[in-house]
């Protein structure tokens, strides 16, 4: 037997005084980390199987369990960290590309945490959102540049199609396939109740969910899975996915084993075949090509639905965004390097792309400089973790934010980052029926609604403190931001002053 | 508002009172009972001797029952005749009680067959009513030798009740097995062995040839010494009141699904009636407390002006002996599925795509699911019969039916 160089990362700690051997941990662990040993008449476990998803911890009725990070150590140093050592061992064992899930976990700067918000004192009174109206309704789409009138002097409605959001939050793209039916249903129902949108991802739209179309963004990605005329017209907007923050420049691969009957029907591909999304759209090699697709989709949907182009935040993001704005797209979505995924090559996830804060600031600045900021709305995602991040993003110039990791957390995800295994104990990133049923959409959707409502309250509170009563007045209002501990260059890109200035 | 008279004061009478009051709060109700007691549960007399209940706890309904239900009760009064034309009943005392509607719930009486020398036994008892048990109890001593004639439900419950209070118990029955009306041969053998471990001696396929003061000589030639004799060979429905006025009677009083007799405004319920046993498609006397209650309740609702039919009667019995339990139901006819495992024994009887009966001894958990299959005449091809054979479970039903049963009120 080959020597296993890897020591379990987590340890399951059981308080045997509290354990009543109800075996819920055993029944609920899809990784089979727990079992009852009749010989010892007690519960035992295998730490190597634990992914630290906390399903057992959360369900244990006597709170007899906890999971701790192993303090087992390599003889690591600042250069050869445990992570580096383990990855080498793993690849030397498997010969394969390392796969990971969720967003970039590496200790790069989080600029949201280096930006502080302003509040009113004396000279411009703050507003109490509980006493006075506070507007967070957001419209996404092209804004008209001038007022046109007919020969009778009446205003001509020249407004391009818009998405109306009750609050500047949307659930970003997660395909049916990467997440479960019940997760999709939770997102769809929450979007409907909240008056916002969720996004099909590139997996097509399940027939059961056409009824949520008014709150759905349908995605067209490089694999074109599930795309049909009905699909394009089912949603409120169409999103062309060029890239995603977790794996810029990389396509996708849903293994055939996960292409169940339902998924094959939804994606419109044969049962059990691998669903491969190419790295590029093979019909898009230029902004002009993109424009063709934008207009093809507009044509197919009778110019009634805004078209979104989603890209990953990469080095030339400002120039690319400028091109997209000129391609006819109504909305640009930018996904930062911390954006999540159901599976990505680790090296790509951890090393490619740029922070969304810097990308957003530079895109907003560039579009303003070019005088085309109003011809598109800008939506950003890639780890918006709280309403504070969201307010900062709006002040940096975003019209709205996409959230997905936070949405998954609301549904029960514990960020174990093992989505690629397909054994999600919380019923989110899995297609196994016995696991999928663990996410009751009645529960899931309510938690999503709670989360977004809570954020909306907080957004209003923060805006009130600034003396701002409408999200419109916050957008791009970088005077409300100050940097802390940032270099001159970073401040310049963000377009903000340092705290104290 | 009318006047409803009930003859009898046991389960059927209580069912009737509760049935009436569920639809009619106004009518006058009069209960006439030849016993002196507040309504008590007849089957509990053995538990009374056993010590697992007492006079107060064995009351079938609380002390306030008659008052709560605005019911007049005449205890210790015997009805001697019914005049269906004048619509009254005549008591032994000469009193005449008029009625608008009448329920006959006269129950049954112990049957004492002619036995040679029976009159010589000084301490001879039947075991049916509270007074029987109290009389028997008075004579029990730790040294008493008791002979029980009849190994049926009543005889054996009596055995259980007195087992720890007497010196020895012998049981004689003409049948080849104990509990012949509810158990098959193998099941009976299992239970018999269990009871024998408690020191009870059985004489089966046998009967008394001659009884003297302290000894019974059996037909087999065996001799059994005794101090106390209990005769529990069976019961006879008390039907004379209705038979005398020409009501339709078979072995017992015939009633329809509304528990009406053939005479207008006279209903009957309980051990004095015949029921239509849907498991065997035949009329039978089902002398069972649940059956009495449900018949009484049905009669009551109809007497009170409501509508109710009772159309799914089956024989069924739950019985325990010294902690060893058995539940049986329906008729033992058709194909048989048998399962035995030590002290656990199960037989299912099915025919024409229906479960018609079962015998379960030992592990009786969830037996009611089988009972329900019989009572509802559930077609077996609509359920997973293979699954339910091994263990009564709702998993064997279709998801649709389960949704109806578990996610809707009923």
């Amino acid at each position, binding site marked *: 037997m080959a020597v296993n160089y890897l020591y379990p990362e987590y340890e399951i700690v059981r308080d045997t*005084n*509290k*354990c*009543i051997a*109800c075996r*819920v941990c055993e*029944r*609920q662990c899809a990784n089979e980390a727990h079992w009852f040993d009749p010989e010892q008449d007690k519960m035992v476990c295998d730490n190597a199987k634990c992914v630290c998803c906390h399903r057992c911890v*959360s*369900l244990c*009725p*006597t709170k*007899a369990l906890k999971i701790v990070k192993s303090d087992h150590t390599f003889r690591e140093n600042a250069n050869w960290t445990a992570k580096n050592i383990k990855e080498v061992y793993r690849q030397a064992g498997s010969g394969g590309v390392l796969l990971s899930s969720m967003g970039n976990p590496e200790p790069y700067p989080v600029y949201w945490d280096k930006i502080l918000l302003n509040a009113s004192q004396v000279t411009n009174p703050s507003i109490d959102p509980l006493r006075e109206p506070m507007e967070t309704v957001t419209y996404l789409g092209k804004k008209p540049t001038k007022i046109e009138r007919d020969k009778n002097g009446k205003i001509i409605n020249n407004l391009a199609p818009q998405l109306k959001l009750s609050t500047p939050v949307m659930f970003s793209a997660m395909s049916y396939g990467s997440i479960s039916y019940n997760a999709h249903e939770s997102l769809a129902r929450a979007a409907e109740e909240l008056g916002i949108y969720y996004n099909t991802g590139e997996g097509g739209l399940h027939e059961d969910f056409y009824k949520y179309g008014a709150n759905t963004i349908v995605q067209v990605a490089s694999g074109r899975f599930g795309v049909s005329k009905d699909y394009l017209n089912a949603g409120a907007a169409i999103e062309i996915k060029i890239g995603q923050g977790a794996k810029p420049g990389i396509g996708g691969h849903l293994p055939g084993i996960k292409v169940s009957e339902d998924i094959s029907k939804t994606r419109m591909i044969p049962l059990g075949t691998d669903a491969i999304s190419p790295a590029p759209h093979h019909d898009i090699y230029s902004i002009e090509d993109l424009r063709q697709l934008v207009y093809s989709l507009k044509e197919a949907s009778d110019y009634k639905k805004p078209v979104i182009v989603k890209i990953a935040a990469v080095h030339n993001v400002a120039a690319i965004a400028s091109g997209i704005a000129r391609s006819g797209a109504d909305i640009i979505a930018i996904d930062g390097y911390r954006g999540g995924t159901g599976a990505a090559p680790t090296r790509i996830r951890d090393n490619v792309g740029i922070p969304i804060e810097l990308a957003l600031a530079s895109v907003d600045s560039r579009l303003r400089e070019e005088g085309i900021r109003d011809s598109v709305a800008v939506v950003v995602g890639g780890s918006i973790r709280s309403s504070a991040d969201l307010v900062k993003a709006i002040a940096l110039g975003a019209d709205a934010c996409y959230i997905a990791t936070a949405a998954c957390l609301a549904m029960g995800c514990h960020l174990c980052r093992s989505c690629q295994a397909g054994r999600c104990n919380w019923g989110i990133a899995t297609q196994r029926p016995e696991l999928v*049923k663990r996410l*009751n959409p*009645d*529960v899931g959707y309510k938690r999503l609604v709670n989360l977004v409502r809570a954020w909306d309250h907080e957004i209003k509170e923060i805006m009130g403190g600034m003396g701002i009563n409408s999200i419109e007045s916050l957008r791009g209002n970088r005077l409300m931001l100050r940097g802390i501990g940032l270099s001159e260059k970073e401040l310049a890109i963000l377009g903000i002053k340092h705290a104290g200035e | 508002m009318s006047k409803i008279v009930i003859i009898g004061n046991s389960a059927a009478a209580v069912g009737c009172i509760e049935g009436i009051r569920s639809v009619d709060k106004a009518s006058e109700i009069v209960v006439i009972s030849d016993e002196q007691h507040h309504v008590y*549960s007849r*089957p*509990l007399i053995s*538990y009374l001797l056993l010590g*697992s*209940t007492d006079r107060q*706890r064995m*009351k*079938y*309904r609380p002390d306030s029952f008659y008052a709560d239900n605005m019911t007049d009760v005449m205890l210790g009064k015997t009805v001697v005749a019914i005049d269906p034309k004048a619509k009254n009943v005549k008591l032994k005392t000469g009193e005449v009680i008029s009625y608008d509607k009448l329920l006959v719930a006269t129950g049954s009486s112990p049957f004492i067959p002619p036995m040679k020398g029976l009159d010589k036994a000084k301490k001879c008892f039947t075991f049916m009513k509270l007074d029987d048990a109290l009389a028997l109890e008075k004579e029990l001593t730790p040294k008493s030798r008791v002979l029980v004639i009849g190994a049926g439900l009543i005889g054996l419950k009596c055995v259980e009740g007195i087992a720890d209070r007497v010196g020895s118990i012998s049981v004689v029955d003409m049948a080849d097995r104990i509990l012949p009306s509810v158990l098959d041969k193998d099941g009976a053998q299992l239970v018999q062995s269990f009871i024998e471990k408690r020191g009870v001696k059985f004489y089966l396929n046998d009967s008394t040839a001659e009884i003297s003061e302290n000894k019974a000589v059996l037909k087999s030639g065996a001799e059994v010494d005794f101090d106390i004799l209990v005769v529990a060979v069976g019961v006879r429905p008390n039907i004379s009141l209705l038979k005398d006025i020409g009501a339709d009677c078979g072995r017992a009083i015939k009633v329809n699904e509304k528990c009406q007799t053939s005479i207008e405004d006279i209903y009957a319920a309980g051990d004095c009636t015949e029921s239509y046993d849907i498991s065997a498609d035949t009329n039978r006397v089902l002398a069972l*407390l*649940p059956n009495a*209650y*449900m018949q009484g*309740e049905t009669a009551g609702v109809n007497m009170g002006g409501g509508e109710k039919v009772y159309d799914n009667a089956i024989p*069924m*019995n*739950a*019985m*325990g002996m010294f*902690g060893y339990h058995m*539940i049986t139901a329906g008729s033992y006819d058709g194909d048989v599925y048998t399962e035995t495992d030590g002290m656990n024994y199960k037989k299912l009887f099915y025919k024409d795509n229906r479960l018609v009966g079962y015998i379960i001894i030992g592990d*009786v*958990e*969830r*037996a*009611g*699911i089988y*009972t329900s299959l019989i*009572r*509802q005449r559930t077609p077996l091809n609509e359920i997973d019969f293979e699954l339910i054979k091994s263990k*009564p*479970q*709702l*998993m064997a039903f279709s*998801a649709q039916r*389960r949704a109806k*049963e*578990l*996610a*809707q*009120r*009923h």
Partner: protein
Amino acid sequence: MKRIYVNEKWCLGCHLCEYYCAFANSGKDDMAKALKGVKINPRIRVEEGEKINFAVSCRHCEEPLCVKSCITGALTIKDGLISFNKDKCVGCYTCIMSCPYGCIMPDGSGHAVQKCELCTKNACGEPACVKGCPNQAIVFEER
């Protein structure tokens, strides 16, 4: 009246309802103290199938066969709730024979039965199985 309803679509077969039931009716204030080393005898039971699980407890029928069949008067129905008076029960099991759902079972002593009384007689306040169900497969509501 509010009753317990079960939706098997969401039942995970985790059996937590059984343990919460056993704890609620144990009379103890600590779950570990109540159930450690104990073979539980809950009033709600999970049936396990290949792909289906569901919990079953007293349906509190409007026409309760158990109440009508009870030979002692230990089972009664009031305002829709079927209550059990252990003091009166002699453990004859007629109710076990009668319940179409198999929801009455022998208690630990073997001399009496037990059944779900919607946690009206313990300190739980609302049905413990409902409170403890992680997936809302068991709900307590008017239908």
